């Protein structure tokens, strides 16, 4: 399928038999509208956010309680043999679209944002995006501009931090009512 001329298209990648369209976040809604109305991708299947903080460098993922973290990627032990290709910004948001028609074509729309930058909402296009966008805010801290209900979804309303960020430690949460206060 050809996606040339899609509004805001930055790059098209083909890997593992999947098509990824990297789109300028400012023109995300235009691009999604074109994909839905012209290319027939009528269903938004998923929005998956990824944090690339520390991508390819040691000591970020998986630290348990220590100040520096545990270096899981020391050379010659576990971890990387070659450094992975750098990413343009810290977060990626991946919109997985599906067309309900024979063959079931799929496409992944990817936008890149840095910490604090927001993405426009796609709820007017696909109402099902509501909880997925709230989850992206809750878990990754990516603000969604224009969302009708911008609240946390899974964590408590007063929760601090965004648990799926790479700088959010495992085992570091305070335990309430532990008797140590």
């Amino acid at each position, binding site marked *: 399928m050809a996606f040339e001329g899609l509004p805001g298209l930055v790059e098209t990648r083909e890997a593992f038999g999947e098509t990824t369209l990297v789109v300028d976040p400012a023109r995300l809604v235009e691009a999604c509208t074109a994909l839905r109305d012209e290319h*027939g991708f009528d269903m938004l299947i998923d929005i998956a956010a990824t944090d690339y903080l520390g991508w390819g460098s040691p000591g970020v993922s998986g630290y348990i309680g220590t100040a520096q973290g545990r270096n899981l990627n020391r050379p010659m032990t576990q971890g990387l043999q070659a450094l992975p290709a750098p990413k343009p910004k810290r977060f990626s948001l991946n919109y997985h679209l599906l067309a309900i028609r024979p063959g079931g074509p799929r496409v992944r729309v990817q936008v890149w944002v840095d910490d604090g930058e927001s993405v426009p909402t796609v709820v007017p296009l696909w109402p099902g995006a509501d909880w997925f966008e709230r989850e992206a805010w809750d878990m990754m801290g990516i603000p969604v501009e224009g969302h009708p209900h911008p609240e946390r979804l899974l964590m408590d309303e007063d929760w601090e931090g965004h648990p799926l960020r790479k700088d*959010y430690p495992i085992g570091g949460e305070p335990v309430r009512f532990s008797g140590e206060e």
Partner: protein
Amino acid sequence: MALPATKDPIYEGTRIPSPIPTVLEVDPTVKDTDDILTVNFGPNHPSTHGVLRLIVDLDGEVVVGVHAKVGYVHTGFEKNMEQKTWWKGITYAPRIDYLAYQNNELVFVLAIEKLLGLEIPPKAAWMRMLMSELNRIHSHLVWLGTAALELGAISMFWYTFRERETILDLSELVAGYRMHTRYFQTGGLAEDIPTGFYPECRKFVEWMPKAIADYDSLLRKNEIWEDRTIGLGLLNRSDAIALGQTGPVLRASGVDWDLRRDNPYLYYDRTHFHVPVYPGGDTYGRYRVRIEEMQASVDIIEQCLDRLERMEGEPWIADDRKVVLPPREELHTSMESLIHHFKIVTEGYRVPEGEVYVAVESPRGELGCYVVSDGGPRPWRVKFRAPSFAALEATATAVQGAYIADLIAIVGSLDTVMGEVDR
């Protein structure tokens, strides 16, 4: 292909609340009459199918507002899986949706295999299909039993759990575990299929259609069941698509869509099965779809058995020693095997850099797994696209105008598993 512009048989236009699609707000003109009673429903209510909280506004007995709150069983599966090797992550996947464990396991190993570019032997593929279909019947049985229980049909529960027990026994026979088997291994299966499995599974395949007919005869012409399911919990096809519904909920809204047939994985394209579609978009349609899907699953299991019985002695796991554990008996004689075993268990295997999205048809709909690898032994990111998560978003659309008693049946008919919604 745009949807045909025919008259929608369920309802015209859209009923998705605006501006927030997942929250049904009380009409302000009604709210001012002071007749609205707000009821907190859950999170620990026996009929909420897990730990779901609904804040319901009632006008008399009629639901005029609903607000679903989730997150009570958020346990950070995705975060945890980032800390574990790919190999150990397989253990986490089935626990996310604890009723469709085999399908969860399947989607995660398929994602790893897609990144690795690993081919699995045919015997493993057929057995994976067989186990997934057994699991689908298991999940639908639990749904049917509890959904009927909520409407007062207590005996259904005993019958469905009797057959569920047989499925768990079959799992135990194959994998040693009744649930959360971790039987699917990167590259194939963890163990060969035991010899006693085929005759036992045949017995089940012969028995099950009779059991399904029994369930159907208990409920289908049951007046109470019909009154409380037909025409309730409506969701038309354009709303179902807009809300990202998949699986039985989508098929009950008249959309003929099944990933096993339309986006086939494993060897589903070599099997024949019926995809039930109902045009009603109601609770009854979802019940019919699930009942008929059980029969379709039995048909697939039978076809898998026909193949598997002729595959005696064939390999059940790929021959790639960098990814697959060496056979246990080699550890006593081969230094090389011992080293490989040690390396895979302690460090894990490296998975090429990249990102993939894999989807399978779980009993609840499209179960997707988006994984990112940085080339190391641990996933950089794992994201499960839970079908229940999307299904629960349709609550506010489907319960409009329902009675409070039917609310239970309608939310139940969406078949949500909260472990999967909250992850």
